[in-house]
Each structure stands twice: as C-alpha cells, then as structure tokens.
C-alpha cells in the first residue's frame, strides 16, 4: 500500500506516521504533503493507494482536495484525519466521497480499524 499523508502540521504528519507504525502498518510506503495543492500533485504523480488527509488546511483544504480528485475521476480511497468530527462534517465528507473520518485525537486502533474497513477485502 502507498499511503499519502496530507496535513499542514509537520508535527501531525509525524504523529500519523507513528500511529501507522503502531497500527501495524509501518511496512507500507508513506509519503507526505503539506497542503492540498501539494497533495494533488503527489496523487497525480505517484498514484498512492490511500490518502489520509486533514480537513482544516489553507486552501485548498481537505474537502476541496477530495472534491477535485473525484472531479478528475481519481477514486483513490480517501480518509479524513481531522479535528472536525461533528455529524455534519462526517455527512459532508461522505457526500464528497470520503471512505471514513478519523477524529483527532485518535489512537493507533482507531486508525487501523478505519483503514481496514477500506482495504481489507470482505468475504
């Protein structure tokens, strides 16, 4: 799996990497983008198999990034890791095509469960 982590906070990108390792997902390739524009370029160039993105970032924010990806027909599995965990935000995320919303603060188990929902084939 190639995972793209998008967050304007370098500290949070490190925390997400750490939590991915704790979740047993450390063997996967993890790359980073510091904003939505950088993330869009990274998706086009590297075709990650999963995007984990913050929502609240300087424009384009996470929702704008997801919307643009879907507009371009790029259906990469996309999950938000965000402090915006209200039902209204979850509804907006789902409508835009997000597979999940992990609310900050989160633990490794939260991250693993969300990612497995998307990546583990269901029998």
């Amino acid at each position, binding site marked *: 799996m190639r995972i793209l982590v998008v967050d304007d*906070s370098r500290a949070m990108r*490190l*925390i997400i990497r*750490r939590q991915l390792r704790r979740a047993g997902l450390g063997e996967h390739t993890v790359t980073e983008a510091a904003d939505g524009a950088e993330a869009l370029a990274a998706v086009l160039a590297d075709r990650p198999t999963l995007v984990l993105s913050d929502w*609240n*970032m300087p424009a384009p924010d996470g929702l704008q990034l997801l919307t643009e990806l879907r507009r371009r027909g790029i259906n990469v599995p996309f999950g938000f890791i965000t*402090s*915006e965990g209200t039902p209204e935000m979850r509804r907006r995320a789902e409508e835009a095509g997000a597979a999940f919303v992990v609310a*900050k*603060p989160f633990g490794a188990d939260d991250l693993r469960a969300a990612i497995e929902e998307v990546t583990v084939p269901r029998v």
Partner: protein
Amino acid sequence: MSGSVSAAVPVSEGDLAAVARAVWDATLGLGLDGIEPAPPVPDPRLAAVVSLSGGFEGAVSLELSTAAGREIASLMFGLGVEEISWEDTADAVGELANIVGGNVKALLGRPAALSLPSVVALPPVTPGPCRPAVGRAGPVARGVTMGFGRNVVRIALHASATADPPAVTDVPAAGREIGKGDR
C-alpha cells in the same frame, strides 16, 4: 461574564478539561490535572488560538509558557528540546489548539467554522493598574488551568460579546491583549 452570554455557552469547565485531557493523552501520552487555585502561566508565554464563527462567535485558546510549548514540540517531533525552533513550537501547539478547538466546537451543538490556528508570543505580565482580561479572542466564557508535569496550560473558550460588554476584572490581568510579541 454576563449571565446572558454565559447561559448561551453550552460547554462547561468540566467539558474543557475533559477535552484537554483526551488530547494530551492521545497526542502526547501525558496526563493533565486540574489545578486549584489556578496559578499564573509563567513568562515567557505563548498563546495558540483557533477562532469559531457562524453559529458560535468566539475562540478557543491555549496559553502556556514558551518552555512548555517547546517540551510539547519535543514530544511531538521526537527531538531534544534544544533542537526545537519557534516554528516547531508554533506548529505543535497550534495543532493542539486545532484539536482542542475542533472537539469543543463539536460540543457547542451548532454549526460553526473553525479557523486555522494562530500562535503568538505574549508580552510579559507587568504589575500595575488592573487591565481587563480581554483579548481579541473575546471575553472568556469558560476557562480551566491544568498541569502536566511542572507545566501549566490555561484552556479557554472565548465568546464574542453578543449583548453585554465584557466584565472588567479587579485583579491584574493574566496578560494583555493577545497579539504578536517578541519571540
């Protein structure tokens, strides 16, 4: 704090404390304990603020010493404190404010937009005439002071004045208006 504004804020000090504890635990692996009576945050200090707008007009702020901010950044970056720059400190504490703010926003029960965090160094507290403890973030509707190790953090939910002007305190303020100061 006027009764009308206070009644409009559906978040208690206990709620603020619970959110902060969860964030400190999950993000830093640190416990956070309430402190009574609340000690002042030692200088030099910084504040990280996220604004709320729309269904609720106000802000959530974290106020702590710059040294405490560096320790937090050290944990988040996995670096020694001596390697931590102001930018690292602002990044780390700003992210904590973002997470605390997002969770407090969820408790407000009304749609509101959360801003990006702003982190500023605060000017030192100076003894002298009493000053209103009001910053650009608006008067404090709810505030708790908590400790982690030897450090102190003041977590506050600010509510912009709706009908009543903010009350003027009769004790020296914990700081001047939140704004950029010397780094």
